[in-house]
C-alpha cells in the first residue's frame, strides 16, 4: 500500500533541517500503523510526504503502487480526494459548513450531487453517533464531536488509506478513548490502511504496528498481533 525507499526531506536554504533522512518503509493493505517519536522527529513530515502534500528531497514514495513524484500536483490532489482520508489534531473542518455538509463534502468533490451525497453523509453521521448534530456548524460542537465529524468525513468515501495526525491530541482522555474505539471499528469495517501519528501510547495501543522515529530516522519498528476492536 505504502512504500518509501530512501526518502529524505530537508527544509530551509541556509541552515538545513533534515526532517526525514534515508527512510525505507513498507506498509501493507489494512495494516494499522502508529508512528511515534518526540517532537521534531519527522512524524508530520512523513504524513505529508505520504499524502502528497509535500515532496521528498530524495528517494521515492509510492502509494497504491503509484510513484508520487511522477504525478502532477493535480494527480496527487486527485489521489488524496479518491484514496486518502485525513484526520487532523485540529480537526480542520470547514467552519462555514454544517456537520452533514462537511461529511458530504468529499463525495461532492468527487462529483456526487447534493441529494445523493447527503443521505450517505447522514448515515455516516449516525455511524459516528452524531445523528442529532448533523445541522450544527463546527463551532457549535464539542472537540470530540468535531473529531467524529472529521472521521466521518475521512471515511465517507471508503479510502484505501486513512492518515491520522494526532487525532486525539486535542481531546480529553475520555473523548480520546471514544474516538479511538470508533476509528478502530470503522477502519476494520472499511479495511482501510491506517497510518496514525501520535504521542499517545493509548492510541498506539490500537495499532498492530508501531514505528518509532528519531531525528528523521526509524529507530524501532515493532509488530503486534492484536485483535482489532478490542483495543488491548
Amino acid at each position, binding site marked *: 500500500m505504502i512504500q518509501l525507499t530512501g526518502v529524505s526531506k530537508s527544509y530551509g536554504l541556509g541552515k538545513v533541517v533534515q526532517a526525514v533522512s534515508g527512510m525505507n518503509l513498507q506498509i501493507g493493505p489494512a495494516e494499522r500503523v502508529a508512528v511515534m517519536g518526540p517532537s521534531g522527529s519527522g512524524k508530520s513530515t512523513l504524513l505529508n510526504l505520504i499524502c502528497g502534500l509535500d515532496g521528498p528531497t530524495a528517494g521515492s514514495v509510492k502509494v497504491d503502487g503509484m510513484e508520487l513524484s511522477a504525478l502532477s500536483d493535480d494527480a496527487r490532489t486527485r489521489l488524496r480526494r479518491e484514496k486518502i482520508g485525513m484526520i487532523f489534531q485540529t480537526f480542520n473542518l470547514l467552519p462555514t459548513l454544517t456537520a452533514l455538509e462537511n461529511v458530504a463534502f468529499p463525495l*461532492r468533490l468527487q462529483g456526487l450531487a447534493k441529494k445523493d451525497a447527503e443521505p450517505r453523509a447522514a448515515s455516516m453521521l449516525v455511524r459516528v453517533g452524531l445523528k442529532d448534530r448533523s445541522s450544527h456548524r463546527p463551532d457549535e460542537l464539542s472537540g470530540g464531536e468535531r473529531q467524529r465529524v472529521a472521521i466521518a468525513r475521512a471515511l465517507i468515501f471508503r479510502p484505501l488509506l486513512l492518515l491520522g495526525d494526532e487525532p486525539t491530541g486535542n481531546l480529553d482522555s475520555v473523548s480520546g478513548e471514544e474516538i479511538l474505539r470508533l476509528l478502530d471499528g470503522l477502519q476494520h469495517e472499511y479495511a482501510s490502511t491506517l497510518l496514525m501519528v501520535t504521542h499517545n501510547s493509548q492510541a498506539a495501543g490500537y495499532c498492530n504496528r508501531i514505528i518509532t522515529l528519531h531525528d528523521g530516522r526509524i529507530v524501532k519498528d515493532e509488530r503486534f498481533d492484536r485483535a482489532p476492536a478490542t483495543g488491548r
Partner: protein
Amino acid sequence: MMIPALWQISSRQWRAHRLRVLMTTLGIALGVAVFFAVRTANTALLDSLSLTVERLAGKSTLEVTSGETGFPEEVIDTVRATPGVELAEPVIEVIVHSAFADEGNLLILGVDTTGDQQLRQYEFDRSQTEIADPLTYLAQPNSLLLSRAFAERHGLRIGDRLPIFTAHGRKDFIVQGLFQPVGVGAVFGGNVAVMDVYSAQVVFDRGRSFDRIDLMNSRSVPVDELQRRLCARLPAGLETVRPQMRGQALENAVTAMRLGMLITSFIALLVGVYIIFNSFTIAVNQRWKEIGILRSLGVERRNVYAMFLGEALLMGVIGSISGIAGGFYLAAAASKVMGSIAASVYGVISTAVAPRLHPVTVLTSFALGVAASLIGAWFPARAASCLDPILALHNIESRQPESSLGWKRIAPGSALVLVASLLVHFSPSRVGMTLQLSYAAVILLGLTLLLPMLVQGSARLIHPVMDWAGGAEGGLAVDAMVRSPRRSSATVGALMVGLMFVFSTGAYIQSYKHMIGRWTHRMLNSDLVVATSTLLRSTSYHFSEDMGNRISALPEVKSVENVRFTFIPFQGDSAAVIAIEMDGFLARASDAIEGGSSRHVRELLPRGEGVLVSNNFSARWRCRVGGRVRLNAPTGVLDLPILGIVEDYRSDKGSIFMDRALYKKFWKDDAVDFVDVNLKPGEDATLVKRKIERLTSGSEHALVYTNAELRIWIGSLVDQFFLLNYMQLVVAVVVAVVGIVNTLIVSVMERSREFAIVRAVGGYCSQIRKMVLLEAVAISIVGVMVGALAAVFNIQFMSRTVSTVVAGYEVPFYFPWLLVLAALPAVAAVSLLAAWLPALRAMRMSVIEAIGYE
C-alpha cells in the same frame, strides 16, 4: 469550471462576510455606475448634438460653411448656379442673450422663410395656421417667430415685444408667430426663434454675409458629385460638407470634455479593480486555512483558483448589473452636467435628450465590470491557489514571515514604475490616447507590487514618532505593520489609490491655475477688458467697432484694442484666431512672445506679414518659429510665416494671433469680441469701469472687468472647466473612503481572535482599543505618505500625458504640499471612524468564544 461543491463554500463565505462582499460589490457597482453614466451621458450628448444638427439641417444634403466667421453672401449665387443644386438657402445662426432675467440663451435661426420651408419644417401653433402677417414679418427686421416653449415661459403672445441684445445694443423684437416645440422648435430646449435671414444680417450686424448655406442636390446629381463640383467652384476658405459633418465638428468641439469624462470613468473602473483586489487579498488571508483544508481534501490548485475567480465573477455580475441600474440614474445628472458644460464652456447648442439604455453601452459596461472584478481578483486568486497547503493547515500563529519584500516583487514593481514614467516623459502623442492613458495603469500596477515594501519603509519611518506619541501601543501598532506589511497593504493600497487621485487632481488644478495666472499676467494685462459674455466668449453675439471708438473717446483712456476671437477650419480640424490690433498688443505684451527676433515681430506682425501661434498650436501641429501656416480664408488663401510663439490657453485647439486689419481684409468680418482698454497713467480703473458701464448700459450686453476682476473671472471659468476634475476628485474621495472603511473593518474583525488572546493574557479593553485606533492612525499616515509618493508619478502623468491629450499642452509639475498636509487629519478621522465600530464589536466578543475556535 468550478466544482459545484465549491459554490457551497463560496456561498457560505459570502454569508459569513456579508459586509465585505457588500463593500466589494459596491466598489464594482460604483465603478460600473460611473462608467455607464458617463458613457450614456456621452452618447446622449452626441445624440443630442446630431439631433440638433439634423433638426437644424432639415432636408439639406450639403452645407457650405467657413468656420465661425461667415462668408460673403454672393457665394449663394455661385452655389445656386452650380449644376446639380436643387435648392440652396442661406442661414445665419445667432445665440443671443434675451434681456429677461434668468433666461438662458436664445438661438435665433436666420433663414429665408420664403424659400426655407422646403428645407425645414416650422410647425406652427395649434391655434394658429400661419404667420399672422407675413408681409410685416418680412418688412420689419425686428420680427421674429418664437417657439411656444420660450413664449410660454415669458408669457409672450403674438404682437408682444421681446428685448434682445444685438450688435447695436438692446433692441425690442416683435413676436410675429409661434411655433410648436417640435422639429426646429425643439432644438436648444425650445429656446429658439426664427427670423428672416436678411433681417438677421441687419440687426446682428453681419453685413452682407451668411454663416452657412444649406442646400439640396437635384435627384440626377449624387451628393458626392455635387460636393466635388462645389469644392471646385468655391473659394478655398469655404467648406462644403454633409450636415452630419457639422455634427462631427460639434463633437470635436466638445472632445476635450468628453475625454475628461471618459478618463473619470476609467478611473472609477480602475478603482473598482483596486477595491476587488483589496477585498480578495483580504479574503485570501481570511480563508488561508480553508484553502489548506480544501487542498488536503483533494481540491486541485486550479479549482481553488476557479473558486476565487468564480466569486469575483459573481460579484462582477451583481456589481455590474446594479452599477448599470444605478448608472442609469446617474446618467441623467451626468448628462445635465455635460450639456451645461457644452453650452457654457464650448458654446455648443444641444437639444435635451433623455439618456437611453444603449445595448452596446450596457454590454460594454457589463463586460468591463466583470472584467474589472476578474482582473482585480486575479492575483489574490493566484496567490490562493499557490498557497502551500501544509502551511495553510497550521494556525495563523505559525505562518512564516512574509516573503512579500523579495526581489520577485521589488524588481518588476520598480521596473514597471520606471518604464511607465519614462514613457510619460518621452513617448510621442502619436502612439494613441488609449496607450498613453494606460501608462497610469502600469504605474499603479508597479506601485501595487511595491506596496508592501513602501508600507514597511514608511512604517519604519514613523516608528519613532508613534512610539513617542502613542506609548507602547503606538509602537506595537507600527510593529505590526513592519512585521507583516501585507496585512496593512490592502488598506494602505486603497488609500494610496484614492489619495493619489486626490493629490494629483488637486495638483493639476493648482498648477493649471498657476499657469493661467502667469498667462493672464503676461498676455491679458490691459487695465480693463470689455467682454460680450460671462463665458470666455459668445459665438454669436459681438460688439461693433463703434463701441471701441466710443470707449477710446473717454478722456481717461490711453488706447483700446478691438479683439476678434473666433474659430476657423484648419487642416480638417479647427483653430482659434485671435485678431488683435497688434501695435497696442505689442506695446504691452511683447515680452510674452518667445522665439523669433523681436525686431522682426515688431516690423512684420502689425503689417499682417506674419502670425504668432500659441504654444499648444505649435505642439499640436508641430510647427515652429520660421515655419509657415496656410489658412483658407473665405476670400482666398493666406500663407504666412510664424514669427513667434506665445503662451495662450483660450482654446484647446491652439490659437493663431494676427493683426486685426489682415483678418478683416481676408475674412470680411469686423465683429469685436473683446475690447482691451489701456488707461492713462494715474487713472482709476474702477471709476473708468463704471463710466464704460454707464456708456453701454441698456444698449450693449457688455461686461466690463478690471484687470483684477478679469483674473478672478478667468479663475471662475477655469473652475467651470474643472467641474469634471472636481467630479474626479469626488470619485477619488469616495474610493478612498470605501477603501479605508472596507479594509479596516475587515482587518479589525479578522483580528478579533488576536485581540481575544491579548485580553486572555491580561490586556485591557482600553489597551486594545488604543492599539486598534493607533494602528488606524498609523495606517492613515503611511497611506498619506504612500499616496503622496504615488501622486508624484501621477502628477507627472496628468500634467504631461493627460493634459496634452485633453488640452493640447503640458502643465508644469506642481506638488500639493498643503493638500497632503490637510489630507492627514481627514484621513485619520475617517480611519478612526472605520476602525472604531469593528473595534467595539471585537471588545464585546467573549474571549473564550474568540479563542475557542479559529
